[in-house]
């Protein structure tokens, strides 16, 4: 029988036979475990406060607009703006504006627009506007469609470029002037530029090959962390000496409603709170250690089909909340998850393919080749928000938990394959 010493302010462990019972001691530790519930640090946040946006991400303040945690956006206008005189604008300036990626993605993200932007890999989320100059559209209609298309189509995916102050009236006039010049089909330099002819990408890389995927180094790192003793004298290995057997399926059942915290807990937040309550390790979300552990815990459950609890009352309620959140328009660009990954799935947004929710979860955390970094699902949520000019929430926000549980429920049956490898 092995007895552990009781260090100050940390959890102590006593091994008795094959049962493992944790006794809590010290401030902030809450480790009662009847029925072998994993100990969790209940107090405090699982990520840094105040949450600071990642370095290198656009430093915009979008608090004027909806987030997944807060409603703030101004309401849609009830009527189109009246345009009484014919619009005069600089069509050349308009041609530059529609292709300017710094102004919210540029129109070419969604529309083919004749020669604009050199017809270089435009998207096809929305109609081809190359012949709109011949479509008989009034200036008022063209202006208002850009200013705020919701007055014509309340369900539109089109950002409200004017009413959300992305372009001013003169700029919209310039773009209208340009649109009126578009009277013939786009000429593409190569067939790849034509979104109707461009073949959808197929992910063929061997993501679990350590030579193919630098993300596999995170597995090595986690295996080292697993055995690393903290000042408590304990490591993960103290209680989990056979992770391969013990965690063969665990990650495939996550995320999960956690009654002690009254929220959905994903793997990353679980790691933070469980490590803190047991070995005392400080593995906040979005640290390298946390990401490595999340990769490893998912990796151990690779090939298991994702199967989360979707039947308990709490899980059902969380999934419903997640579904509603996935439909909420957020940010200055006023977009919802479902705008890209529902209405526009299987289309090109500029040079990138928009996928459906199914298949978008089973490879997280993933190595990202463009960034040379591991991203977990919460960082992915945050980036999507910031890109549509919405303020992100901290990674442990309860809304992200609801959204992740909803996403996991849509991925029921998909087999885990972590770490992924993506752009």
């Amino acid at each position, binding site marked *: 029988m092995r007895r552990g010493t009781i260090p100050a302010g940390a959890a102590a462990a006593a091994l008795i036979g094959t049962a493992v019972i944790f006794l809590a001691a010290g401030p902030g530790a809450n480790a009662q475990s009847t029925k072998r519930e994993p100990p969790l640090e209940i107090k405090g946040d699982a990520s840094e406060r105040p949450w600071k946006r990642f370095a290198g991400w*656009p430093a915009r303040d979008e608090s004027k607009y909806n987030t997944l945690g807060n409603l703030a956006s101004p309401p849609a206008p009830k009527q189109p703006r009246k345009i009484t005189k014919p619009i005069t604008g600089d069509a050349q300036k308009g041609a530059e504006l529609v292709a300017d*990626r*710094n*102004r*919210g*993605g*540029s129109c070419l*993200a969604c529309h083919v627009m004749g020669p604009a932007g*050199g017809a*270089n*890999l435009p*998207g096809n989320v929305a109609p081809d506007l190359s012949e709109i100059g011949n479509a008989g559209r009034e200036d008022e209609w063209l202006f208002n469609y850009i200013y705020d298309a919701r007055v014509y189509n309340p369900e539109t995916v089109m950002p409200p470029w004017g009413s959300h102050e992305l372009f001013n009236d003169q700029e919209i006039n310039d773009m209208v002037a340009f649109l009126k010049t578009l009277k013939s089909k786009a000429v593409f*330099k*190569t067939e*790849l530029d034509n979104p109707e002819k*461009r073949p959808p*990408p197929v992910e063929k890389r061997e993501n679990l090959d350590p030579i193919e995927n630098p993300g596999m180094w995170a597995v090595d790192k986690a295996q080292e962390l697993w055995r690393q003793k903290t000042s408590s004298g304990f490591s993960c290995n103290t209680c989990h000496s056979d992770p391969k057997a013990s965690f063969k399926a665990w990650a495939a059942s996550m995320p999960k409603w956690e009654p002690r915290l009254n929220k959905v807990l994903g793997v990353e937040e679980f790691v933070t709170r469980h490590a803190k309550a047991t070995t005392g390790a400080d593995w906040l979300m979005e640290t390298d250690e946390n990401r490595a552990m999340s990769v490893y815990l998912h990796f151990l459950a690779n090939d298991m089909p994702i199967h989360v609890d979707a039947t308990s009352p709490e899980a059902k309620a969380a999934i419903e909340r997640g579904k509603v959140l996935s439909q909420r328009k957020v940010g200055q660009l006023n977009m919802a998850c479902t705008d890209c990954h529902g209405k526009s799935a299987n289309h*090109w*947004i*500029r*040079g*990138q393919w*928009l996928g459906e929710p199914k298949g978008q979860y089973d490879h997280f955390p993933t190595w990202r*080749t*463009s*960034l*040379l970094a591991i991203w977990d699902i919460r960082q992915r949520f945050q980036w999507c928000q910031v*890109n*549509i000019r919405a303020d992100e929430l901290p990674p442990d926000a309860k809304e992200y938990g609801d959204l992740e549980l909803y996403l996991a429920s849509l991925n029921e049956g998909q087999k885990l394959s972590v770490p992924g490898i993506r*752009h």
Partner: protein
Amino acid sequence: MRLLSRRTALALGASSAAFTFIGLSEDASAAAKEAADMMAKFTGGKTVQQGKVSIELPEIAENGNTVPLSISVDAPMTADNYVSDILVVADGNPNPGVATFQFSPLSGKAEASTRIRLAATQNIIAVAKTSKGEFFTSQKLVKVTIGGCGG
């Protein structure tokens, strides 16, 4: 960066194949010239023949940070006939040099794969030198995709 359709031709040697570049931006055409200089230095002005070199690249690279590249040369790799060196340049990168690979009959195959960085859509050009002092070349255009979301 706008795509301009400019053609810059460079002749190497007396009766050689011309290297033709579809020039890109102003910066890229300076890179194209530097790439041509590197190739001229590698070949010492000797005749360069088109062919025998295959370049494998994605048609559209998912980003410019990691692009898989494979070069292979159809050659016997015997003691009296093998590829000794392959120069690889990227005619649109600020520094066009990519790598120089050296082989011997012990290599078995004149083939190398790696992953490269591309500043923008451009040509990858490979020049192979054989033990007999001959030069072969090939090039391939690779498009770097443009991200959907903006800045």
